[in-house]
C-alpha cells in the first residue's frame, strides 16, 4: 500500500487547478499546492489577509515582515498581483469570486458537510479564521486531508461528529489514499493509490463509497516530506 505523504497529496490537488483560476489555499497541506502547479499554468493565489496573487516564499534575506500571507509566511507578490484590505478581501471571498478554496479538514460528511475549525482541544481557544467565509462562499470547496486519524478511525463519515465549518459545501477530496467527489448520492471515488482495494478503502471510510466507472490509479511522483 503506497499512501501519499502530505506533499504528494498537495501535488495531486495542484494538478487539478486550471489556468486563470482564483484559488485560496488554507493553512497546512493546502499552501504547499502552489509549489506543484504544472509549469506554465498561471494561477491567481489569493490569501485572505488581502493578497491577490501571492508568489513564492521570500528568499532568505529578502523577506519582508510587512508582506505576509494568511499563514503569516513571508511571501512575495506574483507578477500581476496586488494587495487589498481585509474588508475588500472578504468581499471578494463572500461574493463568490474565489474559484476554488483548498482547505484542510478534520472530517467531511457524505453530504459535503465540513468540520475543520474545532477539534475540541481542552482549554485551547477556538480558531475560526477565514475558513467559514471561504467554505460558505467559494465556488468550489476542495479538501486535502488524511483518509483516517492516526489511530485509523475514518474521517470521511455519514455525519460529522465535530462542530461544522459549513454545511454541504465540499465538492472534492484529496486524501492519502484516494481522490473523491461529493455528489447528491454521496462520496464517489475517482482514483485509489496502488495496492489498496475498493474493499479496503471502504473499510477505512465511515460512509458508503460509490466508485466511478472510470475509477483509476492515484499516482504521484516521489516527493520527500520533511515535515
Amino acid at each position, binding site marked *: 500500500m503506497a499512501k501519499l505523504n502530505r506533499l504528494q497529496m498537495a501535488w495531486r490537488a495542484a494538478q487539478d487547478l486550471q489556468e486563470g483560476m482564483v484559488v485560496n489555499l488554507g493553512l497546512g497541506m493546502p499552501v504547499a499546492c502552489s509549489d506543484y502547479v504544472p509549469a506554465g499554468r498561471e494561477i491567481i493565489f489569493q490569501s485572505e489577509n488581502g493578497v491577490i496573487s501571492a508568489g513564492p516564499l521570500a528568499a532568505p534575506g529578502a523577506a519582508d515582515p510587512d508582506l505576509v500571507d494568511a499563514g503569516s509566511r513571508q511571501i512575495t507578490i506574483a507578477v500581476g498581483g496586488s494587495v487589498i484590505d481585509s474588508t475588500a478581501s472578504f468581499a471578494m471571498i463572500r461574493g463568490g469570486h474565489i474559484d476554488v478554496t483548498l482547505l484542510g479538514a478534520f472530517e467531511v460528511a457524505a453530504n459535503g458537510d465540513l468540520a475543520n475549525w474545532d477539534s475540541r482541544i481542552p482549554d485551547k481557544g477556538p480558531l*475560526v479564521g477565514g475558513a467559514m467565509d471561504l467554505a460558505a462562499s467559494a465556488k468550489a470547496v476542495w479538501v486535502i486531508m488524511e483518509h483516517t486519524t492516526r489511530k485509523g478511525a475514518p474521517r470521511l463519515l455519514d455525519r460529522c461528529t465535530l462542530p461544522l465549518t459549513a454545511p454541504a459545501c465540499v465538492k472534492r477530496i484529496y486524501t492519502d489514499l484516494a481522490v473523491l467527489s461529493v455528489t447528491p448520492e454521496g462520496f464517489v471515488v475517482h482514483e485509489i493509490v496502488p495496492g489498496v482495494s475498493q474493499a479496503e478503502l471502504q473499510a477505512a471510510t465511515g460512509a458508503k463509497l460509490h466508485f466511478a466507472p472510470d475509477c483509476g490509479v492515484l499516482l504521484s511522483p516521489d516527493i520527500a516530506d520533511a515535515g
Partner: protein
Amino acid sequence: MAIDKRITAVAEKLQGIKDGATVMLSGFGGAGFANTLILALRDAGPRDLTMVSNSATHLLGRTQVLIEANMVRKVICSAARGRGKELSPFEEQWKAGKIELEVLPQGTMAERIRAGGAGIPAFYTPAGVGTDLVKGKEIRRFNGRDYVLETAIEGDLALIRGDLADRFGNVTFRGTQANFGPAMATACKLSIVEVFATQAEAIPPERVMLPGVFVDHVLAVGGR
C-alpha cells in the same frame, strides 16, 4: 494655522480612553501592528476594555500586553488559539472566566467593522450559517438560501500601523500592513496611526490608501 495631524507623543491623546472602552487593533501575521501605540495604551492603563483584533494572541504583535496587564474584559476576534500546547495569556484568563470571548468568522468580523464605519447597522451574511457560531442569531432566507444577521461593531479607539503619513492624516501601507486598519479607522471615534515616517508635504492623491478624513493623529515611530 493649517491642518496638521502629526503628533510627537501619544500619551496625552490616550487620556480620554475610559474604562470599558472598545479598542480596535490592526495587524495580521506580523504585518500592521501598532506596537508602539499598544504599549502606550498599556501605560495609559484603562481597564475593562473590549479588544477587537483578528487574533487574541499574536506572536509578533503586542496585542497580548493588554491582556497580560489585566486590562481586557472581552475579546472579539477570529482566532483565539495560542500556538503550542501551553496556554497563551489569553487562554489562561479565558479558561479562568476572566475574559469573555466572541469569536467570529474573519470576514464577518471585517464586514461588521466596515459596517460600523459605514453607517450600516446590520447586514446578512452566509458565513457561519449552519454552525455553532451563529447560535441565537437571526437567520433569514433570501433567494432560497439562509443568511445570518450580523450587527455593526463600533469602537472608541483604533490603533493602526501604516508606512507613511502626511499632515492631513493621509496614510500609505507597505505590503500587507493594511489588513483591518482602514476599516478600523472608519469605525472608531478616535483613530491613531503609527507610521515609519511622517511628512508635511501631501502624499500624492493616487498613493493615499487611508484618507486623512478617517485619521485623528499620526505618529512617526521608525522601524520599517
